[in-house]
């Protein structure tokens, strides 16, 4: 890089840190502690438990939105003339999830159309659940996430497709529960088969950084085994009732 300009030097000065030996020692202590495989294994187990509890939220709401940076907020209006497609793509080497798709500026005027266009061609929904219900649900989720980010929300296009997958998983879970209640074995089997085939929610599986597919397969096994409680619990974790709100069954 060239010599820093005076402007850059002033910005650089903002990032100067105080010397603090206590923090330095504690940071080093942390690094050394993690060199012990047993310490890491315990930390990983704890991490896995948290991950499991948050995966449901991810599948349900597409909460893996990137809102980068804090500080002075740029008014949402400043983004309104931007186009949704940023021309920037995800790099899996810097992410815990695997997603190379384009980053979408959710506050842009054309963002709602990008969300609609992200509907996966392969997606199959149970009888009585229209495509528009999925689009309405996913659009609502991304609009809310953008609002929460003060109009500066960014999300990868792959996440949108994954969120559609999540909606379909919800729809088929509800289909299974409805069939079970009605003692309709054929419908129940159809729903269990759908949940057991990862190709039906392939974007979600492809972007899985670990744990999601395994968890979904556990649910599919529970469906095949007729475990109503497991399916009800799954249904609650994914907020499926809310996501299918308005769908007449």
């Amino acid at each position, binding site marked *: 890089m060239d010599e820093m300009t005076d402007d850059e030097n002033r910005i650089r*000065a903002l990032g100067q*840190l105080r010397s603090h030996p206590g923090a330095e020692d504690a940071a080093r202590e942390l690094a050394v502690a993690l060199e012990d495989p047993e310490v890491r294994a315990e930390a990983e187990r704890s991490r896995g438990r948290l991950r499991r509890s948050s995966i449901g939220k991810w599948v349900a709401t597409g909460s893996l939105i990137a809102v980068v940076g804090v500080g002075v907020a740029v008014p949402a209006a400043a983004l309104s003339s931007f186009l949704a497609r940023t021309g920037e793509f995800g790099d899996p080497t810097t992410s815990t999830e695997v997603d190379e798709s384009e980053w979408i500026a959710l506050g842009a005027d054309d963002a709602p159309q990008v969300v609609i266009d992200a509907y996966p061609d392969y997606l199959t929904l149970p009888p009585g659940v229209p495509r528009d219900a999925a689009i309405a649900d996913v659009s609502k989720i991304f609009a809310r996430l953008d609002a929460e980010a003060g109009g500066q929300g960014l999300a990868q296009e792959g996440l949108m497709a994954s969120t559609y997958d999540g909606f379909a998983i919800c729809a088929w879970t509800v289909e299974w529960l409805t069939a079970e209640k009605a003692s309709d074995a054929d419908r129940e089997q159809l729903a269990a088969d759908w949940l057991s085939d990862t190709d039906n929610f392939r974007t979600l599986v492809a972007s899985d950084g670990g744990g999601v597919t395994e968890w979904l397969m556990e649910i599919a096994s529970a469906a095949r085994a007729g475990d109503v409680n497991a399916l009800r619990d799954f249904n609650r974790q994914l907020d499926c009732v809310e996501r299918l709100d308005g769908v007449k069954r």
Partner: protein
Amino acid sequence: MTYDSAEIAPPVADDVDTFIRLICDELLGYFARRVVPHEDAADCLSETLLVLWCKRDKLPAAHGDRRAWSYGIAHRVLAAQQRNQLRQHSLAGRLQEQLRFRPLVAESTDDAAITALASLSIRDRELVTLVVWEGLTIAQAAVVLGIKPDAARARYSRARRTLRKHLSA
């Protein structure tokens, strides 16, 4: 202490634990500059080091690439912290205590510089601070942000012009 990017020497650490010991101060600085409340930097650091260990097979060979790759992980951990999705690390307790009462970030009275930095878009701001605070090259910062080097250079030039406009006013 090596928080100041200008003081960062590029030692080459072949083994993972040596590299992680070397990078941990830098990463703590990265989080200390960006995380509120200050003590949450401890959890961010702990999570980042854990991910570094988990993904150590993918650690690049060259030191500069290793730094950029590590900052990429830190960048994602920071995003998780801002979504309030970071777990509490019991391992980080002592560091949390240190940071709670003695924050590392120096206060500044350069209001014009603060305003100029805040005027950048969030992504341009992260690009600029990765370069001027963390001492990454623009190409390395591009890796962290998942964008192409040419795009990063164009963004950086634009950000420089914006800073100039604000600071010369």
